[in-house]
């Protein structure tokens, strides 16, 4: 198992243009991710934001409550319209007293591919091996319990009837 990298794939029953908007428009990105950004995603710029409550899911919104209003920075690396967008950030930078500014960032890349009327989205986050070990341990402490909530949430979602 790689300790440096996470890769996620999901097939979304939505056209490529729709998914592209959802990941490249900072307001839409913030809507599902749970951040309200100060500005648009422009390559080579830093976009500040604050943790907000996701509007999509009330249960997750409750979990985000303690982190509400905490500042988050995204550095926009590359924007390749309708194909890919990448960012850098400090993963799990939620500890109120810690100064993350000198620490290494991880790279998040979103890649899209149209499959008929659906869209395959791949997300990779890499660079965890450079994150200080004590920070990784902090993240685990800060999020104890969060993971089991999420598992429950996904189970609930999977049990829901789906449009074919």
């Amino acid at each position: 198992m790689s300790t440096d990298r996470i890769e996620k794939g999901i097939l979304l029953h939505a056209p490529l243009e729709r998914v592209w908007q959802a990941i490249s428009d900072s307001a839409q990105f913030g809507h599902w991710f749970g951040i309200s950004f100060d500005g648009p995603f422009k390559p080579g710029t830093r976009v500040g934001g604050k943790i907000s409550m996701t509007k999509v899911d009330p249960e997750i919104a409750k979990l985000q409550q303690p982190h509400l209003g905490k500042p988050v920075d995204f550095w926009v690396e590359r924007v390749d319209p309708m194909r890919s967008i990448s960012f850098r950030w400090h993963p799990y930078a939620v500890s109120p007293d810690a100064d993350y500014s000198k620490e290494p960032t991880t790279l998040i890349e979103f890649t899209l591919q149209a499959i008929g009327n659906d869209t395959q989205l791949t997300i990779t986050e890499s660079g965890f091996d450079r994150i200080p070990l004590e920070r990784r341990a902090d993240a685990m402490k800060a999020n104890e319990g969060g993971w089991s909530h999420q598992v429950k949430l996904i189970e609930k979602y999977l049990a829901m009837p789906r449009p074919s």
Partner: protein
Amino acid sequence: MTDAAPAFAALGDPTRLTLVMRLSHEGPLSISRLTDRARITRQAVTKHLRILEQARLVSSERAGRERLWQLRQNRLKDVRGYLDQISGQWDAALERLRVMVETGE
């Protein structure tokens, strides 16, 4: 999982990581076996094992004239839990994205 920090610190050393990898692949080993391929002295290996022991990543027990060192698998799982956790966050975020793009919420 609340006391994972010492485990992370203990693993942040190439020699100790190597020892953990060997115990993971080869099962319980004696100090002599662990020293064989470590290119460091028996004393140094012992020191590293003590640090891993304090972090509760390894334990030892007497077997005849020797002492065998073995991994405490549950602790190692905690350490792996970090990436699982971030991975789980992405799963949850992606489900929210799915709801948004598929239902137009």
